[in-house]
Structures are given as C-alpha cells and as structure tokens.
C-alpha cells in the first residue's frame, strides 16, 4: 500500500523506516568500515579460503600422505608398530612382479576391448540417431537408460542374467547357437569371464560414447554437406572426407575418457567376478584392493596406488589437451 503524504499512516511508515535506518546506521558503520577497509584481493581470498582448506584436507593431504606411506612398511592393521623408511623398495618390487604385470595385462584386455566396442557401437548409434527418423527421441531415451543405472545395480542384475540355469543371456545364446543353455558359464569360465565383463561395460557405457559422438556430428555445419552435394560427392565419400574427420576430436575425447575410466574400473568387476575365476579378471584396482584390505600391506598398496595415479594423471593431461582442441573448434 502506498502511503498518502501527510496522512497518519504515512507518518507511521516514515517513522518506522527512519527507525530502521537509524538502527542500521547505528549498527553497521563498524562492519561497513571494516569491510570497506578490505581490498578486493583480500575479500576474494576471504571467500575462497574455506574451499582451499577443504580441498587441501580432502584431496592434497591424503595424496601426500599416500606418497609418504609408499616409502614405508606401514600396515593399517598394525598402526602401533614403528614405521621403517624403505625408500623405493615397494616401487621396485611392484615393477618387477610378474603377478602385477599379469594384472596390468588383464586391465589392458579390458580397456582395449571395451573402448573399441563402445567407440564403434557408440559412433554407429550416434550416426543413426543423427538422421532424425520418426521416434528418434524415444529411441535416444531408451538407449541412454543403461548409462543412468548405478554400477552396483548393473553388476547385480548381470550376475543374474549370466546364471547358467536361469539366466536370460545363456538362453539367448543357446537359442541362436543351438548349444545347451547350461553348458557354459560366463562368469565361471576362465576363457569367457574376461569377455563377460567387457560385454557388461560395453552395454552400460556405449550410450555415453554415443552422446559425445552425437555432439560431434551435430556440430558439423550443414553447408559443408550441401557443398559436397553440389560437387556430386557420394554419401560414402562424404562420410570419409567430412563426417569422420570433423567428428574425430569428439571420438578421441570419448576414447580417452572411457580409457581412463576403465583403467580405474573396480565396482562393476568386483560385483560380477571379484577378480575370478583365479585371477583371470583381476584388474589392477582389484589387485590394489586385495593388497590394501586383505593382506593389509598399506605401504605396498600405497606405492601401487601412486603408480596407477601417475598413469591416470598422465592420461588426463592428454585428455585435457584433446578437450582444448575440441573447444578451439
């Protein structure tokens, strides 16, 4: 309500507002002068200091502590035992251990095949979705569903799908191959289990690669294809000379991202096979978990974690470089 000048209501309003102003003037000058006395730089530091402290406490301190532990014989289950400085002994031990080398090869098998399958299928799906056929929105949503699930959920229900007696996967394979459904075990067989985890990861993460590739395909301007049409270039030629080269930085980005993620893969493999049978699906992160929380070799596992960290950090540098290349387009 707007007060009419001279009325009692207006007087009350004014007196109320002046009282507020008076109080504000009485309370604020000290704070205001103090804040006014701070430079912009000091204020900026004041605001970001809590974040920096939190970051140091959560990220940097554990990293530095892990680096320190990697040079000692520390065991988390025997914290009272005096710690001895071992130098680079654990690093030397890990980097000459054939079992760890075997775990790295299992990781390589997993990373290479998942990345290849996800890239080929993801790009293929993106190419089809980009054609904007009838109902493509619905299909995009359906294709994206696996990506939205938690790896724990995926691990659990694929364990059921791979069951030799009741699993749907075995029945589908039996239907097409003519073999008996219970004659093979995807998770229990030494030859099949590495492929079982590849299939699940490809099923889950192909949609993600598809999304990145779709962004790449949508970024290609139409006039380039129109110019190619004028020059009577065939669809095949257009694909190899325009579509693929222009979508390549995005494909590279997807390859790097999935490569890094799968190099660190733990949850899904742990739920599906737990590294077995034997050590056929024991990827590096599962070996690390076993050393850290089953053998309680904290110093050793810290050194192993640092080796994996440096590898991922190196790959992340390449990833950032590729990302900048995509941004500059």
């Amino acid at each position, binding site marked *: 309500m707007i007060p009419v000048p001279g009325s009692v209501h207006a007087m009350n309003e004014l007196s109320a507002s002046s009282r507020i102003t008076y109080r504000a003037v009485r309370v604020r000058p000290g704070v205001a002068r103090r804040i006014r006395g701070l430079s912009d730089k000091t204020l900026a530091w004041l605001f970001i200091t809590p974040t920096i402290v939190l970051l140091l406490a959560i990220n940097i301190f554990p990293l530095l502590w892990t680096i320190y532990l990697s040079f000692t014989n520390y065991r988390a289950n025997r914290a009272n035992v005096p710690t001895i400085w071992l130098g680079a002994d654990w*690093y030397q031990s890990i980097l*000459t251990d054939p079992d760890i080398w075997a775990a790295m090869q299992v*990781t390589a098998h997993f990373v290479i095949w998942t990345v290849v399958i996800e890239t080929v299928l993801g790009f293929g799906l993106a190419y089809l979705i980009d054609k904007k056929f009838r109902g493509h929105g619905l299909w995009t949503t359906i294709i994206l569903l696996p990506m939205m699930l938690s790896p724990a959920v995926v691990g659990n229900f694929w364990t059921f799908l791979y069951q030799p007696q009741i699993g749907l996967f075995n029945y589908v394979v039996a239907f097409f191959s003519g073999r008996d459904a219970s004659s093979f075990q995807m998770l229990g067989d030494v030859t099949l289990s590495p492929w079982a985890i590849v299939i699940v990861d490809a099923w889950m993460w192909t949609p993600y690669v598809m999304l990145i590739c779709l962004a790449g395909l949508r970024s290609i301007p139409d006039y380039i294809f129109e110019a190619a049409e004028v020059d009577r270039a065939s669809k095949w030629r257009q694909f190899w000379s325009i579509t693929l080269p222009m979508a390549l930085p995005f494909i590279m980005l997807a390859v790097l991202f999935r490569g890094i993620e799968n190099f660190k893969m733990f949850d899904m493999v742990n739920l599906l096979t737990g590294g077995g049978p034997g050590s056929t699906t024991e990827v590096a992160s599962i070996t690390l978990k076993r050393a850290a929380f089953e053998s309680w070799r904290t110093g050793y596992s810290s050194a192993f974690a640092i080796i994996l960290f*440096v*590898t991922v950090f*190196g*790959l992340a540098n390449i990833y950032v470089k590729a990302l900048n290349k995509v941004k500059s387009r």
Partner: protein
Amino acid sequence: MIVDANPSIARRGFSDRVLRRGPLEALATTIIAAGVVMLMQPFSLTLYSWSFATTLFGTVMFTIVSKVRE
C-alpha cells in the same frame, strides 16, 4: 649494398622453432602414451619395469612445458 627485402621478419633459429609449447607438449604426450603402452604390454618385463619412470617423466615434462610460451 645488400638490402633485406623483408627486414621486419626475424629469422627464427632452431630453439625458436622447437622450444615452443606445441611441439614440446606433443613430445610429452608421446612419452606419456609410450609409458602407458609399456605398462600394459605383454611382451617384455623390462619394458614394464621402466614404464612408471617413463610415464612420470612425460607427466612432469607436460606440466612444465604447458607453462612455456606459445
């Protein structure tokens, strides 16, 4: 008397051509990639043993050269 036809363009030496961010970053990236391949290859234990040193060198090099002028 010899008159330089284009005196404003300074001749670039070897260091100017090579010690730039682009080529150095490419070199660091190649070293990192080589380290990762060495880590996961199934052929030689010696290569595996040197993989960490290679990756670490490439990563440190990348961090340093990313601060070099363009």
